[in-house]
């Protein structure tokens, strides 16, 4: 056993020897899952977290099968809730820990009290951060909505708006680029914005 253990340690790669967590990397993976449903990043997250979750859960549940259920449930929540993760609000490890702790809590309650009330998310909101998460989520929707409204503008106005806001060109640059007098650019932009305001205002109601 002893030799086995030693050889195990010496065989470990440098990254395995390290007990430092690469937080930026974890965030990158989580964001990739959130934004592009990237399976490769999820697989990386799975390999990082799953064995640890399994080990932690094994101490709380009497058998391997239930510990695996915690792994599956936790990682499945990571996949489904990745868009709620906000790296400004805390580390990826904290976020995954919260999910794991909540899954464990609900499962233990189910086993001990025969209750399937899933109270954990009320007691420990997955994102305390939910408020600002929702904001950024809304922003994303807002952009999408803005784009559909812009598509409805006359072509000439679209050019100006897209150039100004999405390509961040100055009005002068646009004038040169579109080969139009500066005054025309300005008035088109003004007209477009007035229309957008009306449209967005309506859709907000």
């Amino acid at each position: 056993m002893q030799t086995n253990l030693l050889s195990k340690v010496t065989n470990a790669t440098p990254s395995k020897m390290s007990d430092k967590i690469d937080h930026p990397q974890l965030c990158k993976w989580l964001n990739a899952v959130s934004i592009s449903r990237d399976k490769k990043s999820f697989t990386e997250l799975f390999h990082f977290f799953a064995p640890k979750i399994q080990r932690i859960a094994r101490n709380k549940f009497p058998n391997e099968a239930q510990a695996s259920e915690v792994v599956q449930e936790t990682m499945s929540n990571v996949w489904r809730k990745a868009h709620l993760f906000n790296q400004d609000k805390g580390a990826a490890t904290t976020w995954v820990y919260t999910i794991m702790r909540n899954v464990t809590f609900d499962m233990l309650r189910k086993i001990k009290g025969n209750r399937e009330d899933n109270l954990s998310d009320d007691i420990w909101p997955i994102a305390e951060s939910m408020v600002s998460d929702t904001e950024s989520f809304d922003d994303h929707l807002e952009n999408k909505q803005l784009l559909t409204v812009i598509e409805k503008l006359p072509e000439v106005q679209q050019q100006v708006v897209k150039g100004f806001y999405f390509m961040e060109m100055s009005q002068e640059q646009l004038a040169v680029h579109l080969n139009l007098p500066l005054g025309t650019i300005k008035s088109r932009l003004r007209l477009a914005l007035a229309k957008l305001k009306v449209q967005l205002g309506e859709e907000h109601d």
Partner: protein
Amino acid sequence: MIKHHPKFELIQSFVNGELPASLSAGIAVHAEMCPKCSQIISQLTEQVAETSFEINMLDNVISEDNRTSLKFNELSETEINTESMIDLITDSNDTFKVEPELVKTITLNNKPYTLPNALKNMPLSKTLHMGKLSRARIQLNENEIHTSLLKIEPGGAVPQHTHKGFELTLLLEGSFNDENGEYVKGDFIMLDGTHTHNPVSTEGCLCFTVANDALHFTKGINKLLNPIGTFIY
């Protein structure tokens, strides 16, 4: 100002998810009203998370007496499970939708009172009245642990009593006094068998209470109340 907070050990168990739902909810509700405890909880959660997931090297050392992690890493059988588990999870396209916040209110002094988030999905039993006290059990099914919403009408009091086990009183609204002074909204008052007290509420209050044994009334005529000590907490 909130003067009574959960002890650090209790917060620790809360963060670890080791407390029953009743006490966990009590701490969560307190933290909602107490920025100080809320900050301790976030910091502790971050630390616990960090240590939970950092043990790459220790994994190998610990595995001497915990073969499960070895098993997970080494058995090709579980490797296959890993792959199929990833496939199973990522096959699903549905993402979690944030539901609009559900709000649950009860009537307090003829006004609606919004229950704290941690309590909003807990089933309440019918309210029982006894003089100026009324109580609704929160049905959590935690055996000897009883959780309730206790309402004291203005001028009401709980007769002097002690407890064989513990008694948590979390003030949700209003205030009360006992031998040790005044308690206000947000105060987290954890007592055990060594305490005796006689809470009186002049303005009325609503409390979230958790106790693992009946109250034990200690004084004079109130001793006659002992059979109904179970009523209150």
